[in-house]
Structure formats: C-alpha cells, structure tokens
C-alpha cells in the first residue's frame, strides 16, 4: 500500500475537529455525565444495599435489566450506567463516521477536498481517528471519574476500556454503512436497526441470566463479559478489537472499489409519472416518512414479540419484601404479578419513555431538515399554505406514532397470548400500548411548538427536555423524588404503575387537548417566521 494514499489525513483531522467543535464534546461528555449521574444517585439512595438486594431478587427487574454483577455499589453503577454510556458512545461514533464520509460525498463537498492533493484513504482514516479517538477519550474520562470516586483502579480501567470498545465497533459499523448506502439518511437508519438488534441480543442475554453468549452481539452489554470489579476479565478486550477491525477493513476495501458518490446497491428506476394517489401534499409527506415509520413499526414488533414470547418464562414467585417496600413501582409489580409487570414495564419503555419519545422528536425534526435543505421552499412556492404544509407533517407524525404503537401492542400481545395459551392477554396488551398515544402526541406537539418558534435550537431543547423527563423517572424509581414531580412529565399519565383497566381516562383526554394546542401554537409560530 502506498503511503501516499493517506496524504493529508492530519490536515483533514484538524478540519474535522474544527467542524465538530460542538457536537464532539457533547457525545464525549455525555457518557461521562451519565456515569456521574448514576454514581451520585446510587450513592444518594438512603439504603442502596437493601435496594440492590431487592432488585436482584425480583424476576421482573433481572429479566429487563439483567442481574447486578458484582452485587456491590460498583456493579450497581455499571448495571445501568455503562449500558447508557455505551449507547451514547456507540451512536456518537457511528454518526460521526457517517457525517464525515457519506454525508460529505452526498453533498458534493468531498469533491472540493478530493480534487486536491489528498490521498484516497485520508478521509476515511481521519473520520475513524475522530470516532475512535472520541470513544477513547470518553472511556478514559469515565475511568478517571470512577477512580476519583475511590473505586478500584483495575475495575475502573476495565470498565473504561469496555466502553471504548463499544464505541470502536460502532465506528466500524457506521463507517461500513456509509460505504454501502448511497444516502446518509439510509446509512443512519441501518445503524439504528443494527442497534435495535444489539438491544434484542442484550435482552435475551438478560433473560438468560446475564452471562450467555448473546452478550457478544450486544456491545452495550459487553461489560457482562469483562465483568469489571468482579472477575475482571481483560481477555475479551482482544476479541473486541478483532471484531471492531472487521467492518473497518471492509470499509477500506469497499472505498476503492466503488465510484465516488455511488453506493453498493444500484439505483433502480422508478415510475415515470406520479400515480394519482400520490398527487397531494399529505401523500408526499407520507412518502418521505414512510420508510422510517415502517422500520420503527417492524423493530417494535420484533422486540415486543420476542419479549411477549419470553414472558411466560418469568417466575411468578414474588420477592418477599416487595410487598412492604415503600415504592409505587414495587407495589405495582405486586399488584400486576411478575409476568404482566414485565410486559407493562416493557411496553412503557418501548412505547413511550425510551422508544416512541425518540420517534416523536425525530419525526418532527424532519420538518427542520426539509426546511434547511430547501425542500420546503419548493413546496411552499406553489399554491400551498404554510398551515397545510406543517399540518400535513404533523398529521403523519401523529398517525405514524399510533401505527407503531399498534404494531408493538399487537406483536407483544400475540407473542404472550400464543405461548401462554391465554388469549385474554391480547386485548389488554394492545390497550396498554395504545394508551401511550396521548403522551406520545404531547411530545410531538411540544416538538412542533419548538420547531415553529425556535427552529434552530429546537432540536437540542427537545432532547434536553426528554433527558430531563427520563432523569426524573430515574430519580423517582430510586425514591429521590415523589410522584408529584413525575406528574410534570407526560410519562406519568400512561405509566406502568396503573393496571390498564384502572388507567384514568380524563388526564389522557387532557393530554390530547394539550397536544393539539401545542401543535396549533407551533403552526402559528411557523406562519410568522421566515423560512430557512
């Protein structure tokens, strides 16, 4: 290989760091902050030792989150903290790769660079250095935070390196997707799909007791193989390195075997005239959002269906002390029984807190992207009112979210009913899933409001608000804040602590009114500001 192929890598690297001056520190610091948060509130728990014993005894929590290994304060911190930190690093690394390779090629900016004395591998190499270097920095800082809290050096280091490895493999996955797919949105979608598959492997691993081979397929659960502060296995790190190298090598091979701007798949021809049912604005919007809605629906159906099938394996033996624990969620589990509680928590997490809330925000963020890329101009220059344009997008987001919830509820309900032979579960699970719609709509409404008035910073604000809600939920779980604080989040009104037939209906109707009002206000804002 000619060394010349890497010419200019250093300069490109400097340039990328300048471009990423805001986004890079965010995704590097995010895992550190998540671990710090986990440390501070595990320590803040009045009686963490008893709490951990409870959690690791309950079949429901171990099935969802896996057992706490080792059963110590360090183990409890990594138990959720390292999963969250890994997910942040994985997405940071993968999206950074796509941003500097495929997005650049797609926009034609790459031509400006590649016409100059720059080696053909320089761009991919510089992007890899940013992604893997960012993961390394995030890992080292996380390790430093752990050590600063007085935890063992070897365990802290191992936890840090495991985190780095999860970032590096996803840098490779992102880089490979960027080589294969012709547009960056497609590549990002596939990265997300790969991530969903890893989640699937992680949950299977948790249900299987936390130490199965499924963990190899889930980088966010790789700490279950290295077991920092426990067995302290350093050897899996070597295998992680080899695994991470595979997509990277494939990326280099593909890079020189394809045309600039081309992907691995050739574009097939479409129809030469618009079919009459696609000749309206809402049809155009649907056509643009269709792929993401379908992928979400399929992903949710797959995850939900598997969990539904797995549910009957969960023992109904109730942990002895849950009954007199002073927490709403513990009494809810007692009331629902382990299997139903497992399903209810799962539907809550996928259908609202951790799943559909993300769909809601990304679906509305699409409007800003359309605007930035001048597609909005194209449509609005024709006889189309702004109200109609934004309204169509919002309508598709509202309807799409219901469709996804429907497929989640159906798949989960069917899975559980068929395996357990008890078909009365099905309507209950479907209702659980659909009951999340008003809360999801509220999130869509708020996103629309922010888009209408503050399009530039709207998306950041959206994520911050969602982060604050999730943080509130976590504080509530460990008893630091009470239910009255939870009521400030839309999560509370379709929460898993309410058995589905006891869920109060009036607050849900109120949420629908709120969602409509937010959307209406957002459209007013959009009508009165300038485009672009």
């Amino acid at each position, binding site marked *: 290989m000619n060394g*010349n192929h890497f010419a200019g890598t250093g300069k490109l690297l400097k340039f990328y760091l300048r471009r990423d001056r*805001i986004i890079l520190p965010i995704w590097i610091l995010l895992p550190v902050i998540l671990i710090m948060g986990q440390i501070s509130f595990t320590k803040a728990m009045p009686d963490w030792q008893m709490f951990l014993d409870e959690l690791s005894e309950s079949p429901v929590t171990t099935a969802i989150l896996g057992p706490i290994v080792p059963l110590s304060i360090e183990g409890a911190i990594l138990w959720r903290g390292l999963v969250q930190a890994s997910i942040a690093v994985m997405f940071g690394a993968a999206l950074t790769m796509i941003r500097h390779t495929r997005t650049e090629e797609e926009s034609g900016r790459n031509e400006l660079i590649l016409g100059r004395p720059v080696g053909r591998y320089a761009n991919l190499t510089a992007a890899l250095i940013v992604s893997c270097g960012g993961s390394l920095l995030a890992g080292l800082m996380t390790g430093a935070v752990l050590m600063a809290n007085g935890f063992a050096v070897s365990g802290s280091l191992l936890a840090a390196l495991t985190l780095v490895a999860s970032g590096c493999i996803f840098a490779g996955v992102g880089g490979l997707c960027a080589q294969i797919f012709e547009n960056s949105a497609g590549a990002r979608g596939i990265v997300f799909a790969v991530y969903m598959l890893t989640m699937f492997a992680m949950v299977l691993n948790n249900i299987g007791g936390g130490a199965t081979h499924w963990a190899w397929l889930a980088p966010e659960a790789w700490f279950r193989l290295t077991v920092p502060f426990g067995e302290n296995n350093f050897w899996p790190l070597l295998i992680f390195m080899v695994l991470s190298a595979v997509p990277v090598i494939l990326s280099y091979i593909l890079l020189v075997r394809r045309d600039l701007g081309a992907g691995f798949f050739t574009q097939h021809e479409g129809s030469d005239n618009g079919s009459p049912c696609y000749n309206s604005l809402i049809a155009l919007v649907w056509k643009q959002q269709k792929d993401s809605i379908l992928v979400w629906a399929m992903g949710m159906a797959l995850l939900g269906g598997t969990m539904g099938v797995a549910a009957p394996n969960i023992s109904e033996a109730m942990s002895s002390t849950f009954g007199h624990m002073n927490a709403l969620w513990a009494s809810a589990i007692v009331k629902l029984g382990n299997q139903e509680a497992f399903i209810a928590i799962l539907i809550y997490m996928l259908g609202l807190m951790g799943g559909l809330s993300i769909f809601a925000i990304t679906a509305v963020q699409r409007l800003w992207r359309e605007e930035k890329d001048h597609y909005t101009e194209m449509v609005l220059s024709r006889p189309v009112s702004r109200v109609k344009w934004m309204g169509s997008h919002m309508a598709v987001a509202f309807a799409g979210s219901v469709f996804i919830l429907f497929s989640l509820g159906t798949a989960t309900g069917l899975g559980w009913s068929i395996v357990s032979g008890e078909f009365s579960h099905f309507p209950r699970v479907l209702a659980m899933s659909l009951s999340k719609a008003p809360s999801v709509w509220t999130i869509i409404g708020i996103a629309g409001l922010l888009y209408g008035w503050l399009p530039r910073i709207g998306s950041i604000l959206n994520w911050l608000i969602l982060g604050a809600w999730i943080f509130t939920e976590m504080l509530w779980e460990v008893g630091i804040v009470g239910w009255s604080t939870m009521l400030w989040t839309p999560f509370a009104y379709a929460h898993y602590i309410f058995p589905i037939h006891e869920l109060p209906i009036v607050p849900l109707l109120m949420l629908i009114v709120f969602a409509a009002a937010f959307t209406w206000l957002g459209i007013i804002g959009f009508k009165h500001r300038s485009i672009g």
Partner: protein
Amino acid sequence: MLGCDPWHDAVDLHHRLVYVPGDVTLWPNLTGGEVIDFLASLYGKINSSRRKALLDRFQLDPKKKCRSYSKGNRQKVALVAAFLVDAELYILDEPTSGLDPLMEQVFQECVFELKKQGKTVFLSSHILAEVEALCDRVGIIRQGKIVESGTLEELRHLTRTTVTVELAEPVNLKQLPGVYDVTQNGEKWRFSVDSNAMDTVMKVLAPMGIKSLIAEPPTLEELFLRHYGDQLWERS
C-alpha cells in the same frame, strides 16, 4: 495526464492541479475564510497577501458562515481557494453560473493572469460568450464525445459567415453557389456564405452599389448549435 497515471499517482498529480466543481456546497458551520484556508493549506503554505487581494477582488466577506452564502458566494469561495494555489493546471467546471456580470469580469481577469504566467486553464462552460472571450482552443462535446476541437479560428473556418448588405441595384443571390438562407427586406439582404465562396460572392456584390456591409464571423453559439441543432431537428 501530465505524464502521470491519474489513479496511482493521484496525490502527486493533484499537487500540480486545482479543481473547481460545478456545484459548490460548503460546510454550513464554518466561515468562508476557514474553508478557503483549509482547502488551500492542503497544498502547503498560503500566500496571505494574495489571499487578501483575491478576497478584495471578488468582494467576498470571509467572516460569514457558509450556510448564509448565496450560490454566487459559494462559487467565489471555491474560486478564491483555487486561484490561491500555484498549480500548473486549473480545471474549472462551470465555475461562474452564479456570478453577476461584474464578478464574471473579475473571474476573466484572473484567468488571463494565469494565462500570462503560462498556466493551463481547462474550462467547461455553457456560457459561450465566456468561452469566446477566454479560450485559445475550444472543444465541443456532444453525448460524451468531442465532436469538434481546435482554435476558435479553425472552427470558424469550417462554417459560414453571416453577411448583411444594403445594395442600390437588384440582384439574384439565390443562384450563387455557397450562399444560404437568403432573406430580403427592401434593399437589405441577409445571407450566410461558405468561407471558400466568399471571394466569388464579393465579386458579384461589388458592382451592385454597396451602401453598407456587415460581415459577422460565426459566433461560438452558432458553431455550437450546428452540432446540437441537428439533434433537435432529428427529434422534430
């Protein structure tokens, strides 16, 4: 190309040439100045006095973020980043489609300066007036193949001159060999004539009392249309 293999010696070759793409997209969160410096620094040190001179000439504000630039301004950024580099060959792919006439003038001056320094400029353009003003040699590409190439003079030789003439006496021009597209408006005649028939035609016209005579060499536009025109003709 320049005695090198374009695939294997890409980096060495690119050191000797500069390319400006037709569609210029820039990094939205960087300023024009940052982009110019980055692109030029890939070749080595930047001549800062030349940078300032170019920015002044193109009237480009380098402090603005690229997301706020118009198409013309983005092209200016790419052009400044290209002219800043001291290369042997400049490949410009329709670089001026977004520039106003004033900036077009500045662009042409810059190209003339490069020419004076003995550099080669390879310009692809649909603006034929620009090509006519700038280029020594012209090639016409049709459906991916070069159908005509040579100096403008050579190309003109192959085709007809348009003549507008005012005559005192009546004449029958349609009979003459090498004369085409004759139109008459009172005393005024307009026709096109093959280069090699020019002599005969002039001898016929001379005794007819010429009041005024305009002979226009074929414009590049006409040369161009000759190559593309029959395609349109075939279609109709």
